[in-house]
């Protein structure tokens, strides 16, 4: 399937509906970054709906520096073999060959991710050309709509990965949701300029003004480290949660992972949140986003 979605009932594999539908099935769930098969098993044991296979969690990418790339296929194979839940993996922004390799390995979702070093500073991957679905990060509605136009079947907030500081994820979720609400309040003749300002196709902008939501699932990511962080993002309108460094950089990953899963499901129940937040040990140490010089902020990657 290499064309944009229509309302017709398509048949076969790789349709927009099966790509977007896969993300619908992840809703209300937690997707966890893992770097080994053992970690993947811990994540599955804790109730993760999927794992993100990568070589280094964002906190280590940030600490170690250098160019961050797609993971070794052996590592991805090992993780695919270790768990029965979906396995995602990251490709560099614009690196369509890394994405081709990941599709060949049988990963269930490709994250075209700002956490890795971009491979193309002008173009993102043409995601319509793939059978495997893609998730992409966004900091605002225009960015989300450009990724959807390129074929992304799922959007996540970027946040600021590898920090344990949830403030940017909050900013991005609030921004995306606020911009959607603004569209729904506009007069039809204002949507043309709105599309111009969002740098997104008019048809997509008009659809969102009508439906009040993105046409794909919206998750949150970037800096989520505690059950309360996950629950706050859900209350702010996220449909599910990615946790990167927050689990396996903490004192008791298995316990924290299970707690974040429960907090995501019961995000609106403070009694459950209080219960699951107890006795989790050390959270990841974390870095304040403000202390990171702007050129080193991952959320600035992608456009």
């Amino acid at each position: 399937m290499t064309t944009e979605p229509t309302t017709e009932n398509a048949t076969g594999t790789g349709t927009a509906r099966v790509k977007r539908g896969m993300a619908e099935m992840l809703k209300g769930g937690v997707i966890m970054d893992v770097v080994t098969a053992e970690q993947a098993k811990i994540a599955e044991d804790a109730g993760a709906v999927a794992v993100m296979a990568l070589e280094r969690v964002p906190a280590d990418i940030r600490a170690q520096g250098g160019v961050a790339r797609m993971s070794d296929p052996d590592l991805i194979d090992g993780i695919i073999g270790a768990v029965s839940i979906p396995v995602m993996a990251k490709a560099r922004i614009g690196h369509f060959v890394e994405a081709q390799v990941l599709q060949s390995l049988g990963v269930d979702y490709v994250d075209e991710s700002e956490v890795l070093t971009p491979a193309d500073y002008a173009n993102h991957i043409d995601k319509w050309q793939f059978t495997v679905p893609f998730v992409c990060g966004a900091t605002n509605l225009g960015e989300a709509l450009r990724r959807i136009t390129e074929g992304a079947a799922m959007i996540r907030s970027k946040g600021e990965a590898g920090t344990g500081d949830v403030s940017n994820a909050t900013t991005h979720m609030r921004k995306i949701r606020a911009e959607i609400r603004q569209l729904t309040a506009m007069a039809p003749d204002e949507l043309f300029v709105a599309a111009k300002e969002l740098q997104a196709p008019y048809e997509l902008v008009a659809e969102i003004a009508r439906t009040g939501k993105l046409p794909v699932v919206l998750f949150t990511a970037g800096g989520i480290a505690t059950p309360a962080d996950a629950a706050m993002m859900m209350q702010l309108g996220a449909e599910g949660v990615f946790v990167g460094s927050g689990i396996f950089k903490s004192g008791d990953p298995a316990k924290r992972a299970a707690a974040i899963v429960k907090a995501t499901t019961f995000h609106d129940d403070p009694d459950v949140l209080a219960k699951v937040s107890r006795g989790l040990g050390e959270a990841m140490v974390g870095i304040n986003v403000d202390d990171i010089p702007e050129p080193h902020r991952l959320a600035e990657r992608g456009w």
Partner: protein
Amino acid sequence: MTPRVTSTRLAPAGVDSAPATGRLTIGVLALQGDVREHLRAVAADDVTALAVRRPAELAQVDALVVPGGESTTMSNLAVAFELLEPIRARIAAGMPVYGSCAGMIMLAETVLDGRLDQRSFGGIDMVVRRNAFGRQVDSFETSLSVSGIAGEPFHAVFIRAPWVESVGPGVEVLARVEGGPADGRIVAVRQGNLLATAFHPELTGDLRVHRFFVDLVRAAR
């Protein structure tokens, strides 16, 4: 989505098609998965749709939908939040349940390719294989006919879907895959008040399977 009045035209075979009166409350298990789509699909003028995450909510419903999602996560949370045994007890007492995809797995007496600690509600005497069609790149859409659903063939969306390996004597097979490498595989079944599909009618806007279920719930009252 506009609420729709339940159609009697699509009543399951052998069921009196005269609609019983009174409001129904149909729950959707809301631990994880595409809960919102199922809530929309069952809601109607005379049907209240209710998200169910707690035993107290389960007690309010006449019937339950188990949505698509990740069955290992649902199993984990159903145990942790003490819903597994109450749902099993309600099923044993005759509560109608419809499961799609992960929901089909949760209704199976036997699950293949699951986790060792994976628990299902059970109720349908069938063996279900998880992720039977393959990984996400093998997910597909197709048309098939569903026994008891009148009209044109049903457009079925399969996402990392299970299939039914075998069924016991009390289970009615409602649909099989038609053509392709999985030709003939069982993908929709009914046993008494329990209904399961390996595909996701909640994703297509074609509400015939959900109406079939609502009619079944009404008939079971």
